[in-house]
């Protein structure tokens, strides 16, 4: 069997990743997550389960939140990918990243890039989500450390920042975090168990 299998024809692809165009010739079976990590060195996108369950590999493809372990690189040909590395602008965190920082939304950090990307996508569609909507949006992301409570708070923090600070929904120009806002907002959480 091993000798009978011919090499599949490599396919030329052009993919924009975090605003930079890349051209490559790839095997059809190369998964997008491996293209990002192994070919481009963008190791912020993680591989957790490799069976489409855990969401550690979530990236944007053409504005859609996808699990990059379950997308072929050739399927992204001509498309635009955004990874966790593309969220911060000029060294300033995106509000969702800032939220994870402020609200202690991570422990080991393995799930965090995927969590942040999924949360970012939620806030694009639903700028002021309820707690239930946040938890539903994280159905495809597993965390083995935090118990999710602080992840939910991190996303509530980001939603609050983005609407409170009048930042537009796409996160651009965001990250203008100022510590006083945190104090105010923590006040609203009073009485919630942690």
């Amino acid at each position, binding site marked *: 069997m091993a000798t009978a*299998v011919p090499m599949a024809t490599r396919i030329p692809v052009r993919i924009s990743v975090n605003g930079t165009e890349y051209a490559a010739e790839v095997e*059809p*079976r190369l998964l997008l997550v491996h293209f990002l990590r192994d070919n481009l060195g963008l190791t912020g996108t993680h591989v957790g389960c490799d*069976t489409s369950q855990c969401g550690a590999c979530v990236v944007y493809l053409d504005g859609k*939140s996808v699990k990059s372990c379950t*997308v*072929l690189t050739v399927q992204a040909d001509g498309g635009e990918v955004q990874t966790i590395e593309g969220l911060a602008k000029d060294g300033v965190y995106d509000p969702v990243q800032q939220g994870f920082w402020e609200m202690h939304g991570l422990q080991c950090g393995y799930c965090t890039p995927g969590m942040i990307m999924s949360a970012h996508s939620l806030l694009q569609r639903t700028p002021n989500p309820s707690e239930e909507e946040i938890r539903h949006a994280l159905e*495809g992301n597993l965390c083995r450390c935090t118990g999710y409570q602080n992840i939910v708070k991190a996303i509530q923090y980001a939603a609050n920042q983005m609407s409170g600070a009048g930042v537009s929904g796409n996160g651009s120009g965001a990250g203008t975090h100022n510590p006083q806002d945190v104090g105010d907002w923590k006040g609203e959480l009073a009485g919630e168990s942690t």
Partner: protein
Amino acid sequence: MFPNQFDYHRPTTVAEAVGVLQQNPDAKVLAGGHSLLPAMKLRLAAPSALVDLSKVEGLTGISTNGSVVIGAMTTYAELRDSAALKAALPIVPETAYHVGDPQVQAVGTLGGSLAHADPSADFTAVALALDASVKAVGADGDRTIPAEELFVDLFTTSLAPDEVLTEIHIPAATGRTGMAYEKFRHPASGYAVVGVAAVVSVGVDGTVAQARIAVTGATSKATRATAAEQALVGKPLSADSIAAAAAVANQGLELNGDHYASAEYRAHLLGVYTRRALERAAASLG
């Protein structure tokens, strides 16, 4: 994990896609890839070639002019967010909202779900309850397959290997019709351990004129629960008639058991979820 080697084709017309399938007998269509690629990574599937439909013109879109027509490559996210479907067929966006997770919804397609015929899929049951049919295009032209004839067995449909499913047709609801889908989600994957779709029409005299109830998750393929349907027809849709229907929901069905849920447990769930689906269908009558 990565799949075996395969050749990759990206046709732009259905005819071209059918042509490639004919030349490669063990080629497979690639839609959203969220059933096929995981199977290929686990080496449960090893097609020699993939025929990616993503660039084929005319396979997406939703039309709600009278009967509803949905392109095979329409994603769950598009179904979930469609205002036209929320008005015409609320069971469709509701069900889409509960498939897997947002990432699965972003890429998984209605055509892919029906062509894959996973015994725990959601839309197989919904398609049966809505009396849907699909259009399949092959080398000798196209044909229409009712959902009832599409699902043959576990992961098996009546589509030929060189046929492409292009459209899903759903007849317009007549009179006062209520509909709902209820599932017991597998806690890890979201798939239906047991799912029940109910579409019930009530006549002018207030009794049930037609009931279509379909089950997924519990059987080797999505199947109508005809005993429950018969228990409702001619009766007013009330707590009593719903309880009577739920009590016979598993009659005539061969239920699966696995490491997650035994056949006995699924029989119990089937009663509970039939009742819940019917209660919500009744409430949606207004």
